[in-house]
């Protein structure tokens, strides 16, 4: 195959290459201002619901909602179930993500399609289908019953619903993180005598860690905000999203909104920390 001809364009007016004429300072300033204004509009549009939340909250509604007896129980429930969900995702989602990234599975597209299919199903539908899977009169339900457990309106049901709502986000994110690790580094470690487990622990995971942290942070946010599947299989125990829903129905919007603020305050720090750490780790790697 013949090499395609390469056209070299010399730096000229407006292109601003090295040695070219400098762009006037005023134009540079105008360009920058336009860029900031444009991205600012996009940012504000995306933040619209959060801005609406903050502008419609009053101190009196916050204090009256959050000073009620048991007001923080949903927060504790959500935090506990979210933490367990993350543990389950790390344990079960990581090997799947690694296998998908390394092409270690036969018919890889089939496996990937499976993960995507679970992402595409609306959470409400996932919840309805979970009833067929883990209801008390299903084989799994019977098995759980023998163990004196139940996946209907229990903490276990809440965790299962959150895992189903968040798992695809973690698996796809972690897959991308593993795929970004150069396999030659793993091969070199193996050639130096490291067994596969050690290679994974000392080479693959540290290099994929920033991406995995982001995947985990997104999964956490998804789990904390999970509602569609949760409302079907775990009306009780009440986590924050369901508390917002039932409070809205019981006493109206002013008393429901403070719980949305609590959800934001509790769910946001982990993704922000992961984002900062991930960006710094990437920056260090670049040099």
């Amino acid at each position: 195959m013949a090499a395609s001809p390469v056209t070299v364009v010399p730096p000229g007016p407006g292109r601003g290459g090295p040695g070219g004429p400098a762009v006037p300072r005023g134009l540079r300033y105008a360009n920058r201002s336009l860029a900031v204004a444009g991205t600012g509009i996009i940012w504000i549009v995306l933040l619209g619901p959060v801005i609406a939340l903050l502008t419609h909250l009053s101190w009196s509604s916050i204090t009256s909602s959050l000073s009620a007896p048991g007001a923080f129980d949903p927060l504790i429930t959500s935090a506990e179930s979210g933490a367990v969900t993350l543990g389950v995702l790390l344990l079960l989602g990581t090997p799947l993500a690694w296998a998908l990234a390394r092409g270690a599975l036969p018919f890889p597209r089939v496996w990937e399609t499976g993960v995507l299919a679970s992402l595409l199903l609306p959470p409400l539908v996932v919840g309805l289908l979970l009833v067929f899977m883990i209801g008390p009169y299903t084989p799994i339900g019977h098995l759980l019953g023998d163990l004196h457990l139940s996946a209907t309106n229990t903490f276990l049901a809440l965790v299962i619903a959150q895992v189903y709502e968040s798992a695809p986000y973690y698996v796809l994110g972690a897959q991308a993180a593993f795929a970004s690790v150069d396999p030659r580094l793993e091969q070199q470690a193996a050639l130096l005598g490291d067994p596969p487990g050690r290679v994974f622990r000392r080479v693959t995971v540290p290099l994929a860690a920033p991406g995995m942290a982001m995947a985990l942070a997104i999964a956490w946010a998804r789990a904390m905000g999970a509602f569609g599947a949760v409302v079907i299989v775990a009306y009780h125990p009440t986590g924050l999203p369901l508390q917002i829903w039932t409070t809205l129905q019981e006493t109206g919007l002013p008393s429901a909104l403070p719980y949305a603020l609590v959800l934001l305050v509790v769910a946001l720090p982990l993704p922000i920390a992961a984002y900062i750490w991930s960006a710094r780790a990437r920056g260090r790697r670049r040099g």
Partner: protein
Amino acid sequence: MAGMAGMAGMAGMAALACLGLAAAGCSSSGSSGNPGNSGGSGDAKHSGTANVAYAASLTYLNERVFGPAFANATGYAYQGTAGPSDGLSGEIAAKTIFPNVFISVGDKPIAELGPKLARWFIQYASTSIVVAYNPASKYAPQFEAIASGKKPLAGLFTLMEQPGFQLGRTDPNTDPQGRAFIYMLELAQMKYHLPKDTVTKILGGPPASPKSTQIFDEAALDSRLQAGQVDAASAYLSQAKQLHLRYIALPPDINLGDASFAGQYAKASITITGNETKTGSPLTLDITTISGAKDAAAGDAFVAYVLSKAGRDLYARQGGYTLLTPALTGPADAVPALIRKELGR
């Protein structure tokens, strides 16, 4: 620098795209007022949308039968929002939804809106509470024997007390059906002289506790029963018929479906969230228009259609509803003329 200029251009275009999306949102909601959207082929002179908030038990009837029939007959478009009556009332009051018509189970959710939003309401039909059951349940033979009258109805309540019995119901704090089921149990306990802890035993704890594992969202409850994952569940007669559920009918003095027993029903009560005590009342369907809502003429036309012969025929064909002589509560002069005409005033 060229990168910066490009970035500026991209950001500007993306911002315009965002504004375009917002505009598209506006035009989309605007176009919903087009009668053609509901597939209506009726009078094209009418424009506007009957935006109806209604008790979730009416979902099939309104969305599949009544809405399209109304659009065809009048030329107005139809849009529905289903939910628990109390919840809808709260959302209307909080202005998170903006219907021009509200249909509630029981008149209390309408009355709670106050005269600024709803000055009158009309009671036009009623339904009753039944116990729907799973034909694959291990208790199915007993359910069938009770449903056919071969075994006494009182046995149903003893059966529901059994440890391990999977009962499903809706949240009494947010849903009239959830409360109606508890009133029915209280009335049955009185009627059949059952032990005083029967209701508590059946419910697995205090009547209005939201922590009960028996409580489900209404949509989840129906799907659980259809998936065979509960033994029995509360249901309205209309729902049981519409979803082809097996059910045990209850006598009128405990099923909350007969307005002549209103005094008897009032003997049952529960205290819900906010320390508010609610008492039993007939499960009537009550309709009103919301003052100050957009497209008021379309809302008036919807209410008039519900009360018309054509509308009542649709309810009768659906089954599970008892049609009542429409009864107005509130000042007659506040009712729009089109609706007054259907009331014969």
